[in-house]
C-alpha cells in the first residue's frame, strides 16, 4: 500500500510537471566532457586503502519539456597508496528526472561503480533517488548546481550485503564568453557501506568539465 502511494505520488508529480504551462518547454540537451580526480577510501576489516588517479568520461543529458534523462560514464586508472597496485575505476550513472519547478529536479536511477583489477571486478550497484537544485548566480553567465542522492537499495558482488549509500555533488558552471561552451568545476562524494559494518567505500572526486548545449 505504501509502495502504491509512492508510485501514485511520483506519477502525480510527473503529470503536474508536464502539464505546467510555465514548464521549461521544448527539446534540449547537453554533452559534457569530464575529467575527474578521484580519491577512493576503502575500509574493510580494519584495513584502510586509499586509491587515487584520474578518470575521463562523458556526461550527457536530454530534456523534453520538464522530463530529463542524464547519463554519465567515467573511467580511469587508480593506484593504491598501500602497495601501489593498479586498478581501473569505472563509474556509470543513469537518472530519469523531472523538473517540477525551474530550479528543482527530482529523479531516480541506477548508479554503478566498479573496481577492475587483475584479481577480479568489484561492483557496487545502487538504485538512487535524486534531488537536485540549480540556480543562476549571475544571469546568463554563472550558475550553480547541487545534487543529493540517496540509495534506495543496492548490491555488491563481493558476497557482502549492501547496507546504505548516498552521494553529494556540487558544481559551479561558467559560460565561456563568445562561445556556446560552459566550463564547470565540481566536487563529488559517493559513499556506500556494507552490512554489519564490514566495510565502507567512499569516492571523493574533483571534477573539471566542458559542456556544450543546454
Amino acid at each position, binding site marked *: 500500500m505504501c509502495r502504491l502511494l509512492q508510485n501514485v505520488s511520483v506519477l502525480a508529480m510527473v503529470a503536474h510537471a508536464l502539464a505546467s504551462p510555465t514548464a521549461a518547454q521544448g527539446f534540449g540537451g547537453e554533452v559534457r566532457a569530464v575529467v575527474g580526480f578521484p580519491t577512493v577510501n576503502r575500509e574493510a576489516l580494519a584495513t584502510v586503502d586509499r586509491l587515487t588517479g584520474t578518470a575521463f568520461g562523458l556526461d550527457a543529458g536530454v530534456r523534453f519539456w520538464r522530463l530529463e534523462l542524464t547519463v554519465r560514464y567515467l573511467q580511469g586508472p587508480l593506484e593504491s597508496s598501500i602497495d601501489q597496485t593498479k586498478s581501473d575505476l569505472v563509474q556509470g550513472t543513469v537518472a530519469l528526472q523531472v523538473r517540477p519547478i525551474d*530550479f528543482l529536479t527530482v529523479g531516480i536511477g541506477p548508479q554503478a561503480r566498479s573496481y577492475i583489477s587483475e584479481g577480479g571486478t568489484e561492483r557496487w550497484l545502487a538504485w538512487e533517488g535524486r534531488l537536485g537544485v540549480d*540556480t543562476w*548566480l549571475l544571469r546568463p553567465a554563472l550558475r*550553480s548546481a547541487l545534487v*543529493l542522492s540517496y540509495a534506495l537499495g543496492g548490491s555488491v558482488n563481493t558476497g557482502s550485503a549492501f547496507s546504505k549509500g*548516498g552521494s553529494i555533488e556540487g558544481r*559551479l558552471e561558467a559560460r565561456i564568453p563568445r562561445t556556446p561552451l560552459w566550463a564547470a568545476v565540481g566536487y563529488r*562524494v559517493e559513499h556506500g557501506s556494507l552490512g554489519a559494518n564490514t566495510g565502507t567505500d567512499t569516492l571523493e572526486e*574533483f571534477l573539471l568539465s566542458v559542456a556544450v548545449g543546454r
Partner: protein
Amino acid sequence: MIRPRIWLLAVCGAFLLAEPAAGQGSGELVQRGIQAYRDLELPTAVGLIRRALAAQGDDTLPEPARLEALSYLGAAEFVRGRNDSAAAAFRRIVQLDPRYRLDPLVFPPELTALFASVRRDTKVVEAELPAVATIAAGSGEFAPRLFASSFHEVRVTIERTDGVPARQVYEGLISDSLELRWDGLDATGAPLQSGRYVLAIESRLASGQVVRILRVPLDIESNPADTVDHPPLPPDSLFLPERVTRGPGLEALVGGLVGGVGIAVLPLVVAPDADLSAGRIAVAGTVALTGVIGFFKQRPGRPIAANVRANELLRQDWRARVGEVAQLNAGRRSIAEIVVRAGPPTVIDVAR
C-alpha cells in the same frame, strides 16, 4: 332714368376698350416702341419702352429684351437731343451686362460712340461662377471669371458675413475679362472653415475710390480628409524591466549560499566516517562567494543597461511612427474637400 344707364354703359365701354392697351405684354410694348422709333415717333417710342421697362411681376422683361429696350430707349432719347437721358439708358445697359455692345448695323456711329463712351466711364464687373463647385483645398481649382465693362482696377476678397476678410484673391487691373484662381485656403494657408462667406469684388477708379461692389454670397462646406489615428504606445508587456527586481539577486544569494554550504557540509553527512579532503571547502567557498557577488551585481533596483537600451529603441520606433502619422495627417488636412455654393449676386453702387 335712361340717361344714367347710358352713361354707365359708356363708362363700361370705355374701360372695355381701354383694357387691351393696358393689358398688352411688355414685350409687345417694346416692339411697338421700336416700330415708333423707326417711324420717328420718338415721344411715343420713349413712352412705350419706358412702360415696358416699368412692368413688374410676370410681365417683367427678360434680360435680353430689357437690353434691347434700353438700347432703343437710349437711341430715341439721343435722336430727341436728350444726350443725358440716352447716357443714363446706356449706363443701365452696361450695369446689366458689361459685355453688351450696340449693333453698328442698326444704330448710327454717333450712337455707338456715345455708348462706348458710357462704357468707358462706367466701371462695372460681372462675375460668372458655377452654382456649385467642389474643389480640393490647396490645388486652386475654383476659378470664377470676371467680365469688366472697361479697363479698371478691382480687388477681390472672400469675406466672412461680418465683413472680416478671410482671403484676398486678387488685387489689380482688369481689362475685358479675368479668370481668378482660389485654392480653397484662407490667409493663414488653412482650408477655409465651413460657413457663409461673400465673394466681394470692388471696382475702383484710378484714384482708388470704390465705385461699385459686387457681392456674391458663398456657402462653403469644408470636409477635411479622414486622418489616421496615432499609433498607441507599445503595451507594457513589450517593455523589458529597466531595473533589477528582487528575484535574481535573491536567487544568486540563496543559491550560492545553499550550494556552498551543501558542498562543505553535506559530504560529512553522506560519508560521516570518511577522511575527506579540505579541497571541497575551496569549491564550496567559490560557489558561495560567487553567489554573494551575483547578489551585489543583481541587487534590487540596479539599472539594467541592455534593457534600458532596448526599451529606448522601442520608444524611438514608436515616436518615429507617431511623427510619420502626424506628417501624413498634416498632408491630409491640407487636401480637404471644399464645396462652394454660390448665391445670387447683389450690387452696391457707391455714390461718387
